C-alpha cells in the first residue's frame, strides 16, 4: 500500500470515528421515543437502563386514548393539514405565477411588502389574529380557524415565483399565439412543468401544518376541536397520566413523517434548501 492511500484510509477512519458517535447521539432521542412507547409505565419509571423496545405499544395507545381522544385529534390534524396544503399550494402558486409572468401596476409594491415583512416574528400577529378570529369572527374551535389564518404564509409565493420565472417564455407564448386563455396556460402548461417544486412546497407546508402548535393551542382549545399536538401537549405535566401513552402519541405523530421524509427526501431537502435561495 502506498503512503498516499494509507493517508487516505486514515482520513476515512478518522471521519467515521468522529461522525458515528455524533450520529448515534442524534438518533438517540428518536430511538428512545420508540422504546418508551413500547414500555409499560412501571418500566419507564424503574431504576434499570432499558434500551430495547418491549411489546406494550398497543396498551399504551389504549392508555393514551383513555387520557384524551387522540385518535379523534389525529383525524382533525390530518384533515386540516391536507386541506391547508392544497389551498396554500393553490393560492401561493397563483400569486407566484402573477408575480413571475405579468407586468402590472403595484407589482413592485407587492414584492417589497412581502420581502420587507418576511423576517418579522410571527409573534407580532398572534394577538390581532386571535382577537379577529375568536372575537370578531367568532370562529374559535372550528376547522376554518385552523386552516385559513395560516394561509398568509408567503414562503410559497416566493418559491413559486422563482420556479415560474425560470421557465422559458416561449413555452407560454406558443400557447398564447394559439389563443389559449391565461388560466388554462397556468393550469395545464405551467403547473405540470413545476411539479417537482410543487411537491417540495407541498411537503414543507404539510409538515408545517401537521406540527403547528402555538396557533392551534390558542384558537382551538376545546377538547373536541384540538389537533393532535395540542391534545398531546395537554397531557405533558399532568400527574396521573400514562407516559407510555404520551410516547405512543409522539410516535404516532412522528413516525409517519419520518417515513415520508425517507421516501421523499430529495423534495424535502429541496424545499428547505430553497429557503436560502432568495
Amino acid at each position, binding site marked *: 500500500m502506498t503512503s498516499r492511500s494509507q493517508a487516505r484510509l486514515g482520513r476515512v477512519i478518522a*471521519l467515521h470515528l468522529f461522525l458515528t458517535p455524533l450520529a448515534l447521539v442524534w438518533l438517540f432521542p428518536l430511538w428512545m421515543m420508540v422504546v418508551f412507547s413500547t414500555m409499560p409505565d412501571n418500566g419507564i419509571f424503574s431504576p434499570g437502563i432499558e434500551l430495547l423496545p418491549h411489546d406494550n405499544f398497543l396498551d399504551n395507545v389504549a392508555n393514551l386514548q383513555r387520557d384524551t381522544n387522540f385518535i379523534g385529534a389525529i383525524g382533525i390534524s390530518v384533515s386540516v393539514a391536507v386541506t391547508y396544503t392544497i389551498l396554500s399550494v393553490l393560492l401561493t402558486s397563483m400569486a407566484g*405565477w402573477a408575480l413571475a409572468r405579468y407586468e402590472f401596476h403595484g407589482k413592485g409594491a407587492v414584492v417589497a411588502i412581502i420581502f420587507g415583512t418576511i423576517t418579522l416574528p410571527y409573534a407580532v400577529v398572534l394577538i390581532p389574529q386571535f382577537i379577529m378570529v375568536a372575537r370578531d369572527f367568532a370562529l374559535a374551535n372550528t376547522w376554518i380557524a385552523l386552516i*385559513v389564518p395560516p*394561509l398568509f404564509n408567503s414562503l410559497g409565493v416566493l418559491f413559486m415565483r422563482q420556479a415560474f420565472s425560470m421557465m422559458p417564455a416561449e413555452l407560454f407564448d406558443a400557447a398564447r399565439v394559439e389563443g389559449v386563455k391565461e388560466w388554462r396556460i397556468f393550469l395545464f402548461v405551467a403547473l405540470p412543468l413545476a411539479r417537482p417544486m410543487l411537491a417540495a412546497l407541498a411537503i414543507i407546508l404539510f409538515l408545517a401544518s401537521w406540527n403547528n402548535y402555538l396557533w392551534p393551542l390558542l384558537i382551538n382549545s376545546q377538547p373536541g376541536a384540538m389537533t393532535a399536538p395540542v391534545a398531546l401537549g395537554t397531557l405533558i405535566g399532568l400527574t396521573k397520566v400514562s407516559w407510555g401513552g404520551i410516547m405512543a402519541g409522539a410516535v404516532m405523530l412522528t413516525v409517519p413523517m419520518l417515513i415520508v421524509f425517507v421516501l421523499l427526501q430529495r423534495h*424535502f431537502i429541496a424545499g428547505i434548501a430553497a429557503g436560502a435561495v432568495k
Partner: protein
Amino acid sequence: MRTQNATAYRFLTPYLLIFAIFWIWPIVSSFMISFQATRTVPWRFAPAFNWGRLIGDPAFYNALTNTLLILVIQVPVMIALAIIMAVLLNSPLLKARGLYRFAFFAPVVVGEVAYSAVFRLMFSLDFGIVNKLLNSVGIPKIDWFSNVTPAMALIMIAVTWRWAGYNAIIILAGLQSIPEDVYEAATLDRVSRVKQFFHITLPLLKPVIVFCAVLSIIGTMQLFTEPFLITERGGPGGGTETLGLLLYRQGFRSLNFGYASAVAYTMAGLAIAITLVQLWLMREPK
C-alpha cells in the same frame, strides 16, 4: 411585456386578501394595540401605559435576559455544529452517507410537542435515561428541572438537537454550489485541507451562514414550546421564561392584549435590528 393588470390581479387577489387580513393588518393592529389600555371596556388610548410598564417590569427583563442568553450561546454552537455536519456529510470519503444524513436530518420532521415530551422524559431526575447513563459512568445525576443553569442548558440542548440538521441542509446546499475547480486549484498549489476550509469554504459560505444565523436568531427569539412543555411554563421559578412565554402568559392567560403586544413589538424591534445587521454584513464590497 405589455401591462396586464386585470389578468395579474385575478391570479393575485385571493392570496393578497388572506395576506392583508391575516398578516399585514395584524402587524399594524398589534402596533396600535400596544398603545392602548386593554383591560378596560372600551379600550382607551394610553400611549405610555404598556410601554411604561414594560420598561419597569422585572418579569420583562428576566424574559429578555433569558432569551438573549439562549440566543448568544445556542445559536453559535448550533451553527458551528451544522457547518461541521454539512462539511463532513459532503466529504467524498464518507460511506453509508444516507444513514448519516438520516440521523442528522430526521429531527427536522419531528414536531415540537413530540420531542419536548421525549426530552422531558429522557432528562427526568430519577428515572431519566440521561441521568442513568451519567450515573453508570460515575457522574452524579443532574437535576435538570429544579436548577436554573441545567434547565437553561436543557432548553439549549433540545433546540440544538431539533434545528442543527435543518441548518446543515441549507449549508450543505451552499457547499454543493461551490465549484469543484476552486479546490482542485488549491490542491495543486499544495494548500492544506484545513487551510482550504478556512480560506475558501468559509468565505464562500458566508452568505449562507449569515442567512442561517438570522433565521435561527429570529426563531430562537420566539422560543415558546420548549420552555412551555419541557421546563414546565418557564420553570424553575421563571428561570427559563422567554419573551415568547411572557407574551403567551400576558396575552392569553391574563388576557392583557395591550401589554402582550408591547412584548411582541419588542421582539419585532429585535428582529428588525438583526435583519439590518444582516443587510449590512451582506452589503456589496466597494
